[in-house]
Structures are given as C-alpha cells and as structure tokens.
C-alpha cells in the first residue's frame, strides 16, 4: 500500500490545485468540450491505450494550450503509474512528455528489482482535417521516442535495445447523432513499433527484431457533452521468446465536466505480461487542461 500513499498525495494536490485555481484561470481554449480526448499512458492525446488524431487540450488555430495528467492502472501483478504533460500549438502540433513506472508487485522479490521505468517524448502533427467539421475526419502523424531508465531486466529477458521510436498515423472522426442521436467518435491508428509491452520490456527481441505495423482502434459514444463511454483495442507485437505478449483492450468512461478537468476510469485487460497470465484491473486518469 506504500504506493497508494506515494501517488495519492500528488493526485489530491492536483485536484485541489485545479479546483482552487479554476476561477482564476483563463479558459483553456476554444475547441469544443472533450475534443482534445484524454491522455494515453504514453502521454499523447487519445484514449487510455490508443493515441488519437486529436491534439491535446483545447487550443484552436489562434491559441496555445496543454494538459497535465496523472494516471494509474492496477492489474493483478503490476501497477502502472504515469505522469504526463503536453503542449498544443495552434491545434497543429502537440509535444508531450511522459514517465511510466511499472511496479513489479509480485515479481519484484524474484527479480531483485522493484520497478521498470521509461520516459516517452512525443510529437504529433495534425496533417489535415477536423474531427468535427471535415467529411474525412482529422488525420495526424506522430512519433513516440521511448527511453528505458533501467535496462537490466529487459536485457536479461532478451530485449535488444533500451530505446526505440514508435511512429503512428491516426484518423479520428466524430459522427453527429450517429447512435440513438448521440455523437460517436471513431479512431483508427496504425503504429510501427519494435516495443515490447509498449517499451517497458525494451525494444526488439530474440523472436523478432524489426518494426511491425500494428492496428489500434477506439470508439467512444458521447452520452451528452460531458460523459463519454467507449472501448479500445491495441494490437501488439510479440518479440520476446521468454514469454508471449498479448494485445491490450479496455472499456472506459470519461467525465469532462468542463474544459479544465477530465476524469477517466477504465476496465483494462493487458493480457499476459512477462509470463504472468491475465493481467486485468482498473485504470484511473486525471487530466487538467490549461
């Protein structure tokens, strides 16, 4: 439970800070509610697991904006904590940074390590289109450069590199009044990657060492303008011989009471990780926008 107290404090501080600061802050930007998505575990704007073509925060074409995010996933044998921040210039370019820490709750004693950790530096450019206003939706191209902070365990299990860069192309479109007159957001992302478990287990491996194209999809239904429910699916490569790697999926609910804050809760299934089966559990993410 030490981790709860460690990470609970900054979450509470952020909530308190956002709540107190709210009346004093200028509006974060002019794009409509929830059109910045939330923040993925890799720091890019999107859902929880899948980056979307949407850029972080609410900056429109004459504005700056950004987000700060704290997220946590507690699955059976692991706990993932993410802190992230992103800047958005004119709804054209998003720059993001995130630190992931995976606590090895049950494996720690065996491996003699408490955690795996990596930093992710992201950039995403909106190529063309607007998620709300364009017939063909919004399309963005992104990079995520990932650097392991301690490579001992990934190296021991056969990972090739301690850093790697994912490249992805995303398309997002909102269909107005699509299901029971509710608006539906559909996202598709193709990612080229060598990452093992998103990079937490390094890059490349004995079974496969080259880039693979992976399909990632999300759908989200706006129940109204502040509640979105949906699901995501993320294909993943399987590069390491020591244990199979599964695809990821989740079902989420996001609450966006106004532009300054959002809260996302998800049931997530990360499959088998490092030989431990069926890693499932709750994901919670708190985002502030400025």
């Amino acid at each position, binding site marked *: 439970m030490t981790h709860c107290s460690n990470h609970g404090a900054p979450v509470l501080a952020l909530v308190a800070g956002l709540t107190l600061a709210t009346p004093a802050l200028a509006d974060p930007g002019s794009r409509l509610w929830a059109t910045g998505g939330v923040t993925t575990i890799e720091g890019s704007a999107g859902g929880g697991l899948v980056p979307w073509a949407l850029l972080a925060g609410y900056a429109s074409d004459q504005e700056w904006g950004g987000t700060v995010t704290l997220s946590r996933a507690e699955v059976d044998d692991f706990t993932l904590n993410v802190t992230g921040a992103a800047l958005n210039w004119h709804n054209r370019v998003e720059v993001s940074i995130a630190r992931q820490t995976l606590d090895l709750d049950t494996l720690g004693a065996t491996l003699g390590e408490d955690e795996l950790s990596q930093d992710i530096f992201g950039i995403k450019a909106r190529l063309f289109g607007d998620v709300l206003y364009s017939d063909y939706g919004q399309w963005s191209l992104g990079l995520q450069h990932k650097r392991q902070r301690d490579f001992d365990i990934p190296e021991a299990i056969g990972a090739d590199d301690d850093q790697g860069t994912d490249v992805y192309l995303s398309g997002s479109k909102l269909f*107005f*009044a699509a299901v*029971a007159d509710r608006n539906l957001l559909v996202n598709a992302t193709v990612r080229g990657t060598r990452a093992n478990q998103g990079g937490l287990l390094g890059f490349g491996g004995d079974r496969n060492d080259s880039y693979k194209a992976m399909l990632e999809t999300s759908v989200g239904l706006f129940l109204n303008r502040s509640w979105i429910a949906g699901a995501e699916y993320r294909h993943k490569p399987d590069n390491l011989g020591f244990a199979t790697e599964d695809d990821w999926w989740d079902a989420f609910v996001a609450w966006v009471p106004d532009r300054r804050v959002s809260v996302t809760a998800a049931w997530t299934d990360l499959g088998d990780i490092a030989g431990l089966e069926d890693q499932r559990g709750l994901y919670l993410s708190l985002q502030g926008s400025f």
Partner: protein
Amino acid sequence: MTTLLRVSVLISVMALVAGCATPGPSEDSLYQDLGKRAGIAEMVEDLMYRIVEDDRIAFQFKDIDVVQFHTNLTDQLCELSGGPCTYTGRPMTDVHDGMNVTETQFNALAEQLVLAMEDNGISTSAQNRLLERLVELHPQITHR
C-alpha cells in the same frame, strides 16, 4: 475472448454505427424538437446576447442589423431543421467573404450555440441533429 472475436465485435460495432447514421423518420421532427419557429427564435435571441459577451467573436458581428440578423438566422435554422421557413438572406459564402473567420471563432460560435440550446431546454438528441446539419456550412463560413 480471442483476439479475432474482439476485433470482429469492434468491426460490427463500427458497421452498426454506419447503418445508424441515417435521418430520423419524420422530416420535420427536428423542427418540432427545437420548439418550432418560436422556440428557434428564442434560442437565437439568447445566442445573440451570448455573442455580444464573447470577446473572441463579438467584433465580427459589430456592424450587423440586429433585427435582420435575428430573422435571417431564425429562418435559416428553421429551414435547416425541416420547418416551413425560407432563408432569404445572402448566400453564406457571400456573407462571410472577407471576414476571415478562423477556426477559433467558428468553435467559439459553436460553443455559444450549444450553450444557448442547453439554456433553452433543447434535448441532447435535437442539439446533435442540428449540429450535424450545421457543420456542413463550415467550409462556407471559415477562411474566406
């Protein structure tokens, strides 16, 4: 669930969505749900007060004939929603020529419209159906 099953579920959800994206049964049901011309007129009046208060867009409207603008926009939304009205104003492209309406300004107006609809008790369903028709005007309004 197997991977294949999950993917097929996702694809069928998406297919279902595509199949649902057709207009409702009655052609003027949106007009009814907006409260007919009187309801639309009230909402447009509220929208105009909101525009004046919004520094992002107020300057774009400063030389308008307020009464004429109210009549034209009300007629336009009435016609767009399937009601028995005819928009008699100039074509949207002409009206916005030289205004250089930015995405920021378009978004600001969309926000004020949604808030005006909310304040007038227009349902989420009717809001979405009206927005679906209004976003078609985006290319006629912005960057001209």
